[in-house]
């Protein structure tokens, strides 16, 4: 759970970095998209590295979800008679929503991949295609309801990352003192904050017309 989680955290950081190219120029963004495919060529075939990364991420996703489901199932098995009254007094909003928030992110992920990677859905109806990633993205986010979905997803991602990044450090045994424990909690929020802010800037910039 922790290992794959941290892998995802690194991935979204990189992903976010790429997204920010959108703010530079259309060319910069499209070149970046192209570079992702030609990286490592000719040692690797075209899109080779991308597929390696995708494979790693898919495996990590399966492991992450499997571990989550196992943990969930164990928890239900460990308390078959529930409390009539039970308060959650110590959990943060973030830690409370790990499971359902995770499910939401998974559903969002499917949509996100369909939209931008697999099918490349033309949400705006302006005829954008995968040949110009920049246009696809910009046209899409000029559609307010889509941006709203993304904002909600990023909120969920913030919650998931804030607890997840902290929890991963705890699970890896890096927080064996009061000080490192507090630090880990802060790191969780900082990483989540950077990622989510970085992800939200381009779509919001598009929505308000700063990027066209």
């Amino acid at each position, binding site marked *: 759970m922790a290992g794959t989680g941290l892998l995802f955290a690194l991935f979204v950081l990189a992903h976010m970095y790429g997204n920010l190219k959108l703010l530079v120029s259309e060319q910069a963004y499209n070149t970046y998209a192209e570079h992702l495919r030609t990286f490592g060529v000719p040692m690797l075939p075209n899109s080779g590295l991308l597929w390696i990364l995708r494979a790693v991420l898919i495996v990590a996703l399966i492991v992450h979800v499997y571990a989550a489901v196992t943990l969930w199932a164990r928890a239900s098995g460990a308390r078959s008679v529930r409390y009539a009254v*039970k*308060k959650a007094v*110590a959990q943060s909003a973030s830690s409370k929503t790990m499971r359902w928030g995770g499910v939401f992110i998974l559903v969002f992920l499917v949509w996100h991949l369909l939209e931008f990677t697999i099918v490349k859905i033309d949400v705006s109806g302006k005829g954008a295609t995968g040949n110009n990633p920049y246009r696809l993205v910009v046209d899409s986010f000029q559609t307010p309801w889509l941006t709203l979905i993304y904002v909600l997803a990023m909120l969920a991602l913030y919650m998931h990352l804030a607890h997840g990044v902290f*929890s991963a450090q705890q699970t890896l045994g*890096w927080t*064996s*003192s009061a000080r490192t*424990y507090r630090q880990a909690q802060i790191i969780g929020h900082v990483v989540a904050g950077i990622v989510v802010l970085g992800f939200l800037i381009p779509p919001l910039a598009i929505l308000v017309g700063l990027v066209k």
Partner: protein
Amino acid sequence: MNLTLKIWRQAGPDAKGELVTYQVQDISPDMSFLEMLDVLNERLNDEGREPIAFDSDCREGICGMCGLMISGEAHGPEKATTCQLHMRTFTDGDVITVEPWRADPFPVVRDLVVDRGAFDRIIQAGGFISVNTGAAPEAHSSLVPMEHAMRAFQAAECIGCGACVAACPNASAMLFLGAKVTHLGELPQGQPERWGRVVAMLNQHDLEGFGGCQNLGECSYACPKGIPQDVISTLNHDLRKAMAKGR
């Protein structure tokens, strides 16, 4: 003050239980929660109804025998054991739900009494330092730096009451486990068995059927001794090291 109590009654391990409502009157704020139950039990006995079974022994917050889920909080709203919870915490007219610890590895024996033998078995798996009586070296032959001594002591404060399990949404006993692993692992005497200990105790923990840890923090919050979450990190750290060593 007058209170309404909804208390879990269950005749035996296999019987079906239910919440039964009782009214108590003229409760003094200086009473402990258990003394309030004593008063109720005296009345039930007078009325020819069987008293409510609940565990308690030292009634000074150290033996770990008492433990009730009080309106959804392990040991109630104060950071103390149930016996140290005083009625001044409540207000006249409150409705209080009282349930036993709920976790499958802690089966209900009767009413509010549960069997916490799983904790003993976890200790049996490795929660000790193997030194036969008489085989000990002179006490001053090994020095313990202050920070290690302090942390070992803090972890050793665990009283094995089970509030951590009761409060954990996953019914995990990682705080109990982490406390023992940290207590012994911080001391020079605990080093020789350190890596084997963590693996054996964790295996027993899982075998007993406790849930896994999500680092939610409910356990530390409920812990009457304030055992911090970072002992779970030490548990994880030691486990990682142990696995690296092929344990």
